[in-house]
């Protein structure tokens, strides 16, 4: 549940328990929203990282797994079920589809959104056109 006493705030009410599912309370890490979209020649992987500076983002790539860790520029706290929880990081791991060109991955951070462009690998036997 979003809770606020400020009359001018946005009040959208959500079940309290649901946001506990993906966040790692013990290591003070939030799970960021992310999306992976397929385009003709590439995949676009995006992470929503508000309250983060570019210099505090670490992106690691291993096999077909991308991991991100981003330190928040200030502590984010939320009250859930009467308990105040504090978060300092965003952390998430995403498994990528097969057939990607690992050498040409480009990442860009703008407006609190991390965009990672992952080109598809073009390989295989050439087909002759008659």
């Amino acid at each position, binding site marked *: *549940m*979003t*809770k606020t006493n*400020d*009359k*001018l*705030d*946005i*009040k*959208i*009410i*959500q*079940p309290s328990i*649901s*946001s506990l599912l993906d966040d790692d309370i013990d290591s003070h890490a*939030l*799970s*960021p*929203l992310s*999306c992976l979209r397929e385009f003709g020649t590439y995949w676009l992987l*995006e992470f*929503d990282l*508000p*309250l983060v500076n570019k210099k505090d983002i670490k992106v690691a790539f291993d096999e077909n797994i991308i991991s991100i860790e981003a330190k928040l520029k200030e502590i*984010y706290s*939320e009250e859930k079920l009467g308990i105040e929880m504090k978060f300092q990081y965003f952390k998430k791991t995403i498994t990528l589809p097969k057939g990607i060109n690992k050498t040409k991955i480009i990442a860009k951070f*703008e*407006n*609190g*959104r991390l965009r990672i462009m992952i080109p598809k690998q073009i390989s295989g036997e050439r087909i002759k056109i008659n």
Partner: protein
Amino acid sequence: MKDSKLSKENILLVGFPSNGLVGTFSISYIVHYLGMKQIGEIEHPDLPPTLFVENGEILASIRIYKKDNLFVIISDLPFDPYRAYDFSESILRYCKSNDIKKIIVVSGMETINREPSTPKIYGLVTHQSFEEILYENQIPKFLTGSIFGTDATIITVFRKSKIPILILYAECHPFFPDPEASILAITTLAKILNVKVDTTDIKKKMERLRIQHRNLMDETVRTLQNQQEKAPTRTPQIYR
């Protein structure tokens, strides 16, 4: 302040979770900024059995607010197609029984590569009477594209009625909460309704709002994707 025809007749604003949570953010902000009072709830037997408690007050997930001639229906739950139809029908019934003359729905429109800080807003109308309002407020018309989900259901239901509807589509990121697009929707709505709404507060809290509403966004995306799988995604090319 100019005198608007809209300021004299009963107007209903509708917001529900959709792309970028634009509808829920903007309508919710208007409700709280204008100090509107809750006057009712909408129930449905198939809605998830969910009630919310805020400061000891029990709240339903679809609520009705009112202040002067302005009405609001807001939902905190995204709808599947079946519930979207019932929701739209119940809005229509509510309009008829409360002498609502016009409806404005606020929603988000997916953009892939929007430049930061420069979203645009478009209007889609069902009746001629709203065309003038678009023109007066310099809101470009939504000319081409496909609409699916709750927006499409509401438009379908109201097209057949005598009550005109305006859908404001703010460009947004479809899968992440987009308070910037919501601010544009709020200022556009304020202009149309001829009311003053200060968005300084929401601007200050933008980043925190994006974190706060991750779960609702996630739930909304799942519902929208479920609807999109059943809908055609391209405009027919017959006359191109």
